[in-house]
């Protein structure tokens, strides 16, 4: 149980994204905006990604982070936000899926 009443600055994705921005890095922010069924991370969870593919945070507890990072690097390049949807692996067009059987929608946008 996380009991700190203050932000964990070393691990908080949005704090890290701000730090990267100050360091002059290009950054994308991915956010879980909808979940159906059993989803590993709640709505509002973040994964932040830089142009080199470094990332912090989580949108699925590890199931789809790889795919989100790949998309995020494209989004950093194009500046155009994308909505990604992940479900059970064999029911979607995506190469990856959620083994828990849930579905999630992830919004990926560039910072700035």
């Amino acid at each position, binding site marked *: 149980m996380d009991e*700190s*009443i203050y932000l964990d600055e070393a691990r908080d994705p*949005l704090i890290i*994204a*701000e730090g990267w921005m100050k360091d002059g890095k290009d950054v994308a922010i991915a956010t879980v*905006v909808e979940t159906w069924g059993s989803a590993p991370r709640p*709505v509002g969870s973040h994964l932040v990604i830089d142009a080199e593919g470094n990332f912090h945070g989580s949108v699925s507890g590890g199931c789809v982070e790889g795919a989100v990072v790949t998309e995020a690097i494209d989004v950093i390049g194009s500046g155009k936000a994308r909505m990604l949807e992940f479900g059970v692996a064999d029911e979607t067009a995506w190469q990856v899926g959620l083994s828990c059987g849930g579905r999630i929608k992830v*919004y990926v*946008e560039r910072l*700035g």
Partner: protein
Amino acid sequence: MDPYVLKTLNEERRARRAAVLVTDLGDGRDRVVREGDHVAGDLGAAIARAFRTGNSASVEAEGRTFFLNAHLPRPRLVVIGAVHISQALAPMARIAGYPVEIIDPRTAFATPERFPDVALHAEWPQDVLQREPLDSYTALAAVTHDPKIDDLALKAALDARCFYVGALGSRKTHAKRVERLLALGASADQIARIHAPIGLDIGAASPAEIAVAVLAQTIHAFRSRGLESKGAAA
């Protein structure tokens, strides 16, 4: 996301102030809404709900789809008094999601043996609260029965607009306390926010039952916060 929006949002989060990040999923435009900011219509109602529940969600409003990401500070409970009630209240409140800190300058009461795994300060409340100020996402329960220990902490809780302020003691005890708080400069409106006698009326008799009553009242105060002030303003 707009860099200035991210910076603003993080400032609010660092300061333990609630904020909702509103993102238009159609065009990507975003903004930070603070608690108490006026937003009209269906979107405003959804934002108010996000502040109250702390739940993030996608909503349809004005023919557009918005994502509301609710960033609420973690609520906490400060207990003045390392007494029997606090021994029961600390673990129960922690399980319910309200981390507890206990303050009591009486070193015979505030011992780690009596309070394992609890943030415990064997100091005067005013000293601890100077280091770790109270805020509107903090609840304060004063349960020592000793005005020397309770009163200044209660005044500080009222000034910091703690979402819950409770004080142990009978109506007669509280009437005397009201006089003392007025003398300390608290207003009658502020003092009216104090829950005394403390706890929901569930007929609690034992210290552990009183702890349940205090915790239930704290949760009720947290989940109905904002509604009360709107009622008062009308």
